[in-house]
């Protein structure tokens, strides 16, 4: 994030803390795609992701005073992660509700709205394919591994930020991420032929 943006962001946060809802909503606007994307990857369900995102922004507004210097994005993602965990826990308590989502529903589901500037219809179809493929692979991971993988490889948080977001320690983050990546790799390699050609691993010499 470039410097002027950070300065603007800091000003918005200051104003929002003083109760300026308009300033806070400008922050929401600049982060809602990122927040929703994260929740979507973790929860694999558009409605649940929207719920988690809304819940996260409400909670962020409520706890804005607790934000200290550092990355606002990482702080926000921590709240989003919490909101996602709430939903994941609720699913565990009532598993029947989510099984429908996991089975079949994926097929009929419209592809999400991608943020992409080179939008041609063909391009869009390929991206949708890649997206579904990756999403399925991520969804196959255990919850804890999936959360860490999304925060690290989709959102690019540091290990330290992930540890804080998931309330674990560095060692746990490292081992979860490692296991998640290995597992996802195996999953992807087994189904490579389903990938659009350009995304396949060319089996050249190593």
């Amino acid at each position, binding site marked *: 994030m470039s410097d002027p943006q950070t300065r603007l962001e800091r000003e918005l946060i200051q104003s929002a803390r003083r109760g300026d809802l308009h300033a806070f909503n400008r922050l929401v606007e600049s982060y809602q795609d990122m927040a929703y994307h994260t929740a979507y990857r973790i929860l694999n369900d558009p409605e649940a992701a929207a719920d988690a995102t809304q819940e996260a922004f409400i909670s962020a507004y409520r706890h804005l005073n607790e934000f200290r210097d550092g990355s606002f994005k990482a702080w926000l993602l921590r709240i989003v992660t919490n909101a996602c965990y709430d939903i994941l826990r609720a699913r565990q308590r009532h598993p029947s509700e989510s099984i429908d989502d996991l089975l079949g529903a994926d097929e009929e589901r419209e592809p999400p709205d991608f943020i992409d500037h080179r939008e041609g219809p063909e391009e869009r179809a390929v991206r949708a394919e*890649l997206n579904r493929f990756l999403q399925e692979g*991520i969804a196959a991971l255990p919850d804890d591994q999936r959360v860490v993988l999304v925060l690290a490889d989709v959102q690019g948080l540091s290990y330290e930020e992930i540890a804080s977001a998931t309330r674990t320690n560095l060692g746990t983050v490292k081992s979860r991420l490692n296991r998640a990546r290995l597992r996802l790799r195996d999953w992807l390699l087994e189904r490579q032929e389903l990938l659009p050609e350009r995304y396949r691993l060319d089996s050249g010499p190593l």
Partner: protein
Amino acid sequence: MSNLEHVTDQLSLFLDGRLNRREQARLEEHLRACVDCRRQLATLRYSVSLMKQAPPIRAPRSFTLSDEQAARALPRWQPGWLYQSLRGLTAFAAVMFLVVFSADILSTSRFGVSAPSSAQTAPATSAPFNAVPAPQAAEDNQSKSVATTAAAAAPVAPAGPSTRAVAQPTAPASAPPALPATSGVAKPTTVAGTAESVQPTTAPVVGGPAAAVSPQPTATAIPIATPAPSVEPASAPTPEARVRLGELPWRAVEVGLLGVVVLSVGGLLALRIYRA
């Protein structure tokens, strides 16, 4: 093979540049020699890079907060750790108070029955047969004398007079039990006085009416009590005295617990008001 496992554990960290220099050098050296691990690394790198190409998704709607949402977000107060722990403390202190208090009452009434043994070591050995327990029970209860104990003492008190009737004629030795009943109803402090009052035969007479009056008031009883020991000079402080003194901390604990309850309830109220 265990080496391979160790290497795969490190590949992820290696990709992120999170190995320290020595680990990194060792891994690189191993990778130069091991095709298997090179393949592992290549496939892992590929998978991670693919993941990083996951198309960013646009939020399906705006998540900006409305005025109502914002208003609802702010005042909604979730009890913080301070509130929670205060609540826990209140409950704990209240329960402890009840436990201590009832243990106190139970033990004293039983103590009263078993007291004769200690009384026997005292001068009044031969003295009032059934009389002894009764007054002493009254005494003990009273020496605790937290308001309600007065009630507990009440049923015992009636026994007092009958004792006295017996006691007076019998002997000085019989006097103590009777007196204690009277003074006992009232005083915690005069404990030692029970022993002192052994001699006076007249004392019981004083005691009689006092006992009749005193069942209800605890606090007011104390003054009535004090004269009793002073009627006669102390002859010998008995074991009883020591036993009773040992009971004093009970009351301190009770008062302390009650204080904790009151304070923490006050704290809870203050927190509520402050947050609201």
